[in-house]
């Protein structure tokens, strides 16, 4: 009988050597004349264990990691195909505390199934949501999504059901479903993990959206920095199409819906939804004025649902298990779960999906295990490049959209970037302004020009050139950015800048002056 061995094809796992491991396992099995079937799953997101190899045994899946190609012979020698112990062994994969403690709703299948296998997908609950949706009319689907409390996971946290309602209520001959897979925020990779590990879940979520609002065409706008996800999506789309889950007659419903992947071209601003639509139309990615809302006048002037990957991927379970099931997770107005991404200088980096309400400290310490460098954590940046830098005193903030806003930050797409005590916070503030200048779409003067001025002001500040004056100038500039920007790129760049200045003022003092002050 053949033994099934799982070796992830996830981009991070591959970057850490998973291809060589898969080849070595096949070669070693051939050499020993053992019947081994290698399945290329996605990643479960415990990246510090990647490449994480799993063996399907009579007692479930047993994990080994991080496995390098040079470990493969010794793994065979100690009988890993039968789940025997080894220095790299972790026992049953589900019992690894990092994974065991999570509440996986949206990312439940990531790392578990073969992402290209429709049969595997369906055997693990896939397409149950679409089946449930097919029994409902559009308005009822929208109501279920509204009742679930699901809010957009791309950053702005707008209630998904309300957006869909607008598109449903707008009469038009053509409507579109657009998935925002631009995932530009540093420190985030949940979209990528899902697209590589469970792409059919995204396709199912978009299909439900199409049924709900009456759309027939969908686009996935994928950043071109994700070639692995691109391949995974195209394979999954072909599988879904081949089985009649996409095309002229979706799952025998008589309704048409199909999806095309479009690649971005390295512009952060194209993650902003109106810029994204411009880009999809083949134009420069310049932000549009709102109104009109994309829900009313979106892609090619037609009503368009634009949602993040994780938003769409959360919809199937809402339909399959009911709005209440999903809504019962979470806290306050933040319902359900958030796939958090632990990134940067962190010992156990990866994806942690938890119900809202868990504290930053639990994530950083219990899951993350502190820094990778072993030094104290000095700052974290939550919510991408436009998020605030927070010191340790804020680590008891619960994961909750409103709590983060109240604390002067934002949760955004759920990325947490960890810095140890060697970080120079003035350099981080400077980088935030530099990034704004590089990625500005050019429409507003403060964002286009002011950001570069800001870099110069920080340079003068750090050089000790009339510091009080420079600081006043920097605050003034930030004020102009906050109030004179059409979108959040210019509008929120002051968050990382001013939070760094507020919580770490000592880093903005010229080293000589700091030394003099300290002596």
């Amino acid at each position: 009988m053949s033994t099934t061995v799982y070796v992830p094809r996830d981009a991070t796992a591959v970057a850490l050597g998973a291809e060589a491991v898969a080849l070595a396992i096949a070669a070693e099995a051939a050499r020993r004349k053992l019947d081994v079937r290698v399945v290329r799953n996605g990643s479960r997101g415990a990246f510090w264990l990647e490449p994480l190899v799993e063996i399907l045994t009579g007692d479930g899946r047993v994990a080994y990691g991080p496995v390098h190609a040079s470990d493969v012979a010794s793994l065979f020698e100690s009988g890993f195909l039968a789940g025997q112990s080894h220095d790299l062994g972790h026992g049953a994969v589900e019992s690894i505390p990092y994974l065991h403690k999570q509440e996986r709703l949206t990312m439940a299948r990531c790392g578990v199934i073969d992402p290209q296998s429709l049969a595997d997908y369906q055997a693990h609950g896939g397409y149950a949501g679409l089946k449930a949706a097919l029994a409902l009319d559009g308005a009822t689907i929208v109501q279920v999504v509204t009742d679930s409390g699901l809010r957009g996971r791309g950053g702005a946290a707008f209630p998904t059901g309300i957006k869909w309602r607008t598109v449903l209520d707008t009469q038009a001959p053509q409507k579109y479903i657009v998935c925002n897979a631009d995932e530009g925020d540093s420190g985030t990779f949940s979209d990528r993990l899902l697209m590589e590990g469970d792409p059919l879940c995204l396709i199912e979520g978009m299909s439900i959206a199409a049924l709900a609002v009456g759309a027939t065409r969908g686009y996935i706008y994928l950043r071109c920095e994700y070639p692995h996800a691109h391949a995974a999506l195209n394979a999954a789309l072909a599988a879904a199409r081949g089985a009649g889950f996409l095309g002229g007659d979706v799952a025998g419903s008589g309704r048409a819906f199909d999806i095309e992947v479009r690649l971005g071209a390295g512009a952060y601003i194209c993650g902003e939804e109106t810029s994204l639509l411009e880009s999809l139309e083949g134009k420069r990615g310049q932000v549009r004025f709102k109104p009109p809302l994309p829900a009313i006048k979106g892609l090619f002037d037609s009503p368009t649902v634009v949602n993040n990957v994780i938003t769409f991927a959360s919809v199937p379970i809402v339909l399959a298990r009911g709005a209440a099931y999903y809504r019962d997770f979470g806290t306050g107005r933040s319902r359900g779960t958030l796939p958090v991404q632990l990134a940067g200088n962190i010992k156990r980096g990866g994806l942690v999906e938890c119900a809202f309400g868990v504290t930053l400290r639990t994530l950083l310490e219990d899951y993350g295990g502190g820094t990778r460098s072993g030094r104290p954590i000095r700052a974290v940046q939550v919510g991408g490049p436009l998020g605030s830098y927070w010191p340790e005193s804020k680590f008891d903030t619960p994961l909750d959209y409103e709590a983060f806003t109240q604390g002067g930050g934002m949760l955004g797409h759920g990325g947490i970037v960890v810095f140890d005590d060697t970080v120079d916070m003035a350099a981080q503030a400077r980088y935030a302004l530099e990034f704004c200048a590089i990625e500005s779409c050019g429409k507003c003067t403060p964002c286009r020009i002011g950001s570069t001025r800001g870099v110069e002001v920080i340079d003068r500040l750090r050089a000790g050139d009339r510091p009080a004056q420079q600081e006043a100038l920097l605050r003034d500039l930030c004020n102009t950015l906050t109030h004179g920007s059409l979108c959040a790129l210019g509008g929120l760049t002051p968050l990382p800048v001013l939070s760094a200045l507020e919580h770490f003022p000592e880093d903005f003092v010229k080293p000589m002056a700091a030394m003099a002050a300290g002596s």
Partner: protein
Amino acid sequence: MSARRPVSVTLRVEPGSDLPADERAAVLEAVQACRSLQGSLLPVLHAIQDRLSWVPPRAVPLIAFELNLSRAEVHGVLSFYHYFRQTKPGRHVVYLCRAEACQASGAVALEAHAKRRLGVDFHGTSADGRYTLEPVYCLGNCACGPSLMIDKELHAGVTPARFDELVAE
């Protein structure tokens, strides 16, 4: 003999007739492959860059002609997006992540090392023509930085020593 009369001649130059054959073919193939798409300019530019490794500015008139757009529109799009190249790169492109999560793991030092090792600044090509160095803002590998991608191959935990190995290969 009568005086010479001024003759007016309209020279009709076929767009793209001045292009090297490979560039012309790349544009026409790209346009053909994307013909049925709505808003096809980005897919066309991608397809050209996939074939040539850059989008020669002299190809703009042909792209514009084929897609029924103005040259200004094509040029505007081509120059807006960081990924599209208007200069020919080296044999490989190194996309080095500069974003925060990688900064937290040593990307600033790696960037300085890479520039020194290749003898270039960002967007430059090493003297041997092998590598072009480009900045990139996140590769989705943020738990295992510093990250870089050589062509389409992603690498994690890239130390300066590992960088030297990668570019020596």
